[in-house]
């Protein structure tokens, strides 16, 4: 066997080529299969949203509305207004802490990456350690804390903690800021600029891509946050999009197309952002892990 291979190298090369074609077919087959697995559920909820109520509740599932396409379910979702209010709440509870928190994170990251001070490394180590703390241990007690200081019934529990900056964001930005040349900072110091001025006029503009990445990741987290609003929000007019979606689904239990249309509509904004900012999201996630990406 081996002799044959040795004597006919051309055959061997051809055999290899054939194998790679075969391998390619297998790779494509598996990738297409998994992509369909991801995409078909979307089609199922989208198409179900196009059906009328009686057809959607029929025991035989149809992949395309047989009784005609109707956008009434989507219309009902938009006319109801609870999803829109939820979306507005999500934006107004998440954007201010995002921007303020990003500034705090950038400030902290600058301190950790470019300033020399006593306790810097131990403080950073401590912060990294806190990321390992399981969230479940503070769940009940933080609700009690917020209740005691009168924050229940307000969106503060969802907003204020984030304003102090996120540890993973600090970690990510620190890594990025380390790459900014020290000469720039030294030159600014000679010109008599203070640290705060250096932060706002040099560091933050230079870190714009990293900040943008973290903003998008932060918005992704806030947009899809379910546990926070579930634990701390009470009033219906303060429900965030995810809580509004869940409420809508249980209120209109017999209006299947409406449920499906609502689920589809609620997922859309993030999907659109994802398709446009994909590069940042993928890079941000593979770098936030603390591994070289």
């Amino acid at each position: 066997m081996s002799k044959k291979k040795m004597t006919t190298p051309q055959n061997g090369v051809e055999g290899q080529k054939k194998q790679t074609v075969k391998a390619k077919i297998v790779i494509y087959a598996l990738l297409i299969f998994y992509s369909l697995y991801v995409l078909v559920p979307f089609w199922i909820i989208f198409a179900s949203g196009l059906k009328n109520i009686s057809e959607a509740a029929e025991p035989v599932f149809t992949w395309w509305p047989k009784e005609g396409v109707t956008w009434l379910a989507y219309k009902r979702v938009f006319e109801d207004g609870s999803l829109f209010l939820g979306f507005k709440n999500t934006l107004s509870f998440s954007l201010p802490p995002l921007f303020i928190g990003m500034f705090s994170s950038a400030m902290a990251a600058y301190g950790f990456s470019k300033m020399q001070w006593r306790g810097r490394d131990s403080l950073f180590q401590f912060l990294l350690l806190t990321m390992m703390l399981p969230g479940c241990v503070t769940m009940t007690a933080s609700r009690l804390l917020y209740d005691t200081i009168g924050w229940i019934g307000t969106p503060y529990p969802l907003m204020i903690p984030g304003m102090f900056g996120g540890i993973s964001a600090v970690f990510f930005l620190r890594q990025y800021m380390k790459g900014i040349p020290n000469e720039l900072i030294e030159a600014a110091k000679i010109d008599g600029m203070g640290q705060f001025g250096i932060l706002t006029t040099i560091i933050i503009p230079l870190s714009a891509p990293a900040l943008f990445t973290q903003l998008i990741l932060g918005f992704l987290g806030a947009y899809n946050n379910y546990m926070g609003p579930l634990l701390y929000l009470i009033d219906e007019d303060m429900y965030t999009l995810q809580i509004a979606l869940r409420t809508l689904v249980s209120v209109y239990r017999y209006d299947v197309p409406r449920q499906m249309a609502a689920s589809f509509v609620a997922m859309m904004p993030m999907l659109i952002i994802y398709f446009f900012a994909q590069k940042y999201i993928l890079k941000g996630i593979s770098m936030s892990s603390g591994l070289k990406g």
Partner: protein
Amino acid sequence: MTEIDVSEEQQGVLQKRSKSKTEISRKRRELKRNVEGWLFSCWPFVGFMLFSGIPFVLSIFLSFTELHSFDILEWEFVGFDNYKWVLFGEQTEHGMRYEFWHSLKQTLYYCLSIPLNLVLSLGIAVLLTRHVKGTKFFRTVLFIPHVCSSVGVSMMWKFIFDPTYGVINSLIRSAGGQTIDFFGSPDWFMPIIILTSTWSAGAGSLLFQAALENVNQTLIEAAELDGGTPTKIFFKITLPSISPTLFYVLTMDIIGGLQCMGQMQIITNGTRNPYNEQGYSESLSAVYLIYWMGFSDPFNYGLGLSSAAAWVLTLIILAFTRLNFWLSKYWVHDDV
């Protein structure tokens, strides 16, 4: 002479003065630097202390008390009673009930999804790093689950597995089978939750893709020349090379998996259905039980039990993490 003396004296004084002046200004600058550093970098720490540190200490206190509302003044000290309930169960008319241990069992059951998804993610990462045409497109599609909310996704699965109008049951019936109430049956609930978790395996493969791209290609080429089979190369070279990433993903998955709750809470509509024959809830994971005792039914359980269970779970999570770190000595290679 005298004039010179004076001037010398003066010079000495001046020198001393300027020396102490530079000393002071140096110290001052150092102090300023330290203060500035802390002023810049302390905010995440302050935030952590206020919104996690205080609840952290509060939960230790709570775990020794009985409290049935969110009014802190109504607390009552009960010693280790809560821990006794969590660890050794409760005597009822029908015998002993071990709610916490059952919820932990369900949690560990759910954690079977971790190795399953790890293998799938790794497989997808291998496929996506073969650089066939269209890899970018597949990467985009397979990552979609990561940006979808757990509520939307859970609604989707609930609909797909619905007993009356769901796709799966429609297909089962057309093949002549019996309708199965997947999320309403104690036998099916967890298996289906685990099955649906594989939907996002492509998103989990992102870190593996990055790691696979960084594997030393010369090592692989050398092994190929030595006649190594692809399988052998994968297990002897590729896998050890990416073992730090595997370890990181595994650690995060274990910490996250042991705290699963959201999906169960959404799919059961905030109830504890389905129950099994012994009357235990099949959907109640450990964190869901902690939530249930503190938020859904504080009257019958209370914040004390909730906090005690949270502490026992936290210690279990730490133990698993420690074990994982200890085991990593045997299979994680930092030097490849």
